[in-house]
């Protein structure tokens, strides 16, 4: 990927006129799952084949959004009378709130956050309503691993619709080295008008995206994450930037915030992000930056970068002995089992 392609994808630079480069950009966007977001920006102002290709992205996104709205209703149905109001996270909340970050965005599974004391009841109600644990994780090791060390239940797939819910009870794994205050996020959540569901505030939404991108999980779709951060940051009025810093301090998200601001500066030349960063005490880990840049831009070193990010993400999640044991077990499992096959469009 060329570094300035992300600017093109959010409309800060025009689409390349060179046909081959335009092809490559669109193919990159598609394979990085942001074609729909590029389409949301460019489809209205282009025609011909460029429009046709972008239109494919719009179809997929609108399918995902339809699926998402339906599943929101199904989740509310499953929780009827329980008084539980799950908090929508990530893509689900962007679409539900009608944020720019949601326009044209793919949503493959639904992330919800519930308080830890509700967890048992939430699991019971979802299982009763037809969700079930995937075969992949329905084994003792994975179940124990998730429940003991992770911040979420193993993914639940609905046995009729094949849609997936990730039920989080914390923002980050129990074992995480980044001490994020999950309770602060949960108590700060606001009701989604017309639903028995909740969403995070603008500031928390941005912070959570930063945490998810930089402190949790290896970054599989860097382009999508950076575009997301770009839009979510733009949703926060400049007047509230100070509040953003303070909130980051309260919830313990300084490091991810710093990294996110670096990303916005590096890929979108965002001055406000730069100003905030310079006010910032905490620096950004150069290795992390290197890894992300190479994963995003440089195919030849991408593998190494991915490995770095993989190990790092687990390093962030757990202590070293546990990490070693986990990676050993996982690689053993990888050797002994075949990967599960991917699902077709819309059935993820």
């Amino acid at each position: 990927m060329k570094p300035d392609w992300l600017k093109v994808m959010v409309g800060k630079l025009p689409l390349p006129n060179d046909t081959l480069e335009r092809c490559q950009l669109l193919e990159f966007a598609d394979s990085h799952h942001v074609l729909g977001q590029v389409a949301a920006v460019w489809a209205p102002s282009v025609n011909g084949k460029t429009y046709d290709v972008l239109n494919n992205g719009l179809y997929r996104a609108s399918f995902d959004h339809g699926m998402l709205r339906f599943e929101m209703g199904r989740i509310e149905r499953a929780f009827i009378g329980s008084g539980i109001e799950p908090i929508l996270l990530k893509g689900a909340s962007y679409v539900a709130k009608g944020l720019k970050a949601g326009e044209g965005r793919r949503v493959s599974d639904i992330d919800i956050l519930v308080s830890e004391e509700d967890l048992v009841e939430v699991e019971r109600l979802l299982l009763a309503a037809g969700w079930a644990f995937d075969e992949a994780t329905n084994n003792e090791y994975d179940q124990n691993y998730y429940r003991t060390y992770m911040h979420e239940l193993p993914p639940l797939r609905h046995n009729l619709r094949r849609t997936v819910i990730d039920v989080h009870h914390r923002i980050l794994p129990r074992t995480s080295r980044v001490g994020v205050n999950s309770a602060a996020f949960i108590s700060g959540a606001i009701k989604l008008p017309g639903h028995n569901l909740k969403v995070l505030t603008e500031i928390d939404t941005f912070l959570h995206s930063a945490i998810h991108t930089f402190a949790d999980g290896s970054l599989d779709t860097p382009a999508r994450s950076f575009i997301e951060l770009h839009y979510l940051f733009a949703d926060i009025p400049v007047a509230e930037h100070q509040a953003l810093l303070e909130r980051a301090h309260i919830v313990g998200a300084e490091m991810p915030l710093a990294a996110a601001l670096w990303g916005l500066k590096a890929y979108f030349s965002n001055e406000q992000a730069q100003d905030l960063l310079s006010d910032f005490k905490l620096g950004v880990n150069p290795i992390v930056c290197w890894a992300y840049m190479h994963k995003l831009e440089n195919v030849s070193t991408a593998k190494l970068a991915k490995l770095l990010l993989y190990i790092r993400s687990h390093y962030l999640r757990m202590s070293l002995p546990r990490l070693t044991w986990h990676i050993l077990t996982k690689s053993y499992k990888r050797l002994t089992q075949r990967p599960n096959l991917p699902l077709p469009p819309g059935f993820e």
Partner: protein
Amino acid sequence: MGMTDFKPLGEYDRRAIIDALAAGTLEMPLGHFTARIKAQVNTLVDFLYDTYRDVPVKTELSDVTDISIHLRAPSILRKYIRTQVIPDPGFQVPAVPLPTSMAALAFEMGVNLVVALKCCRFVSCHAGVVANEKGAIFMCANSGGGKSTLVSVLMEDGYRLLSDEFGLLCMESASLAAYPRPVSLKNVSIDIVRQLSGKEWISPELSGTPKGKIAYRRARPDDINKAHLSAPAKLILFPSFNPIGGHYARRLSVSEAVMRLIPSSTNYHLLGEKAYLALTKMVAGAEVYEIAYRSTDESLTIVRDLAVKVGL
């Protein structure tokens, strides 16, 4: 730019095609789609020269394309196909690693998969479609139903080829779009069609493929030149080759037809209500039959009778 810049692939000299393939700038219109092809496989060049010789192509891109196909080697030993467009998060278009000698098969499979799974302008169903000026015959079957043989036979019976692998239903007009591609023939059907159409229309055979012996029946210049013409479905068939059973034609109700068509579609759910409306509209405008036959001749007789019955 535009069609004026296109000329039949067969009229280019080999060097130009090879360079364009290497640069990934070979542009090929396929009905309403265009494909960008990148490859470093000689056997593919041979195949294109033979089977796509009448298809107009450009060696430079005039615009972005719906389909982007890249044949490349994951290892020294094998070449396999990988489309550069991934239809869905985590969903990779599956492709069997095939020896270079089967690059043709890999290419055909790859193009079909992209059209089936990625292109959203049409409802795509597993179906072969032929048409005359009055309308189209839509033959819905998985591979093995003798669909391709039937398509080839009807091509000799005065119909033009719309598509072999996937029937493409336009959501606005509920009519069938042309997608004239080589008709893929398996095992015994190869000889049947070779005798019927003449050997000059049949590609060299690939043997030992996962599907057994395979050869392609080239689309005719007329099929290709009329690719912009859509046709309304007049006759919808669910054929099954049934050597040990009887032969019959059973009329299906609208609801049963829709029930059979939806599972045969690769993108019905993706397209939502527009697809439902188009599909039901197509069915309403046609007569639908489930047919079974014991031989190619028998299938032709049955289809001819039904075609007459619906005024084709």
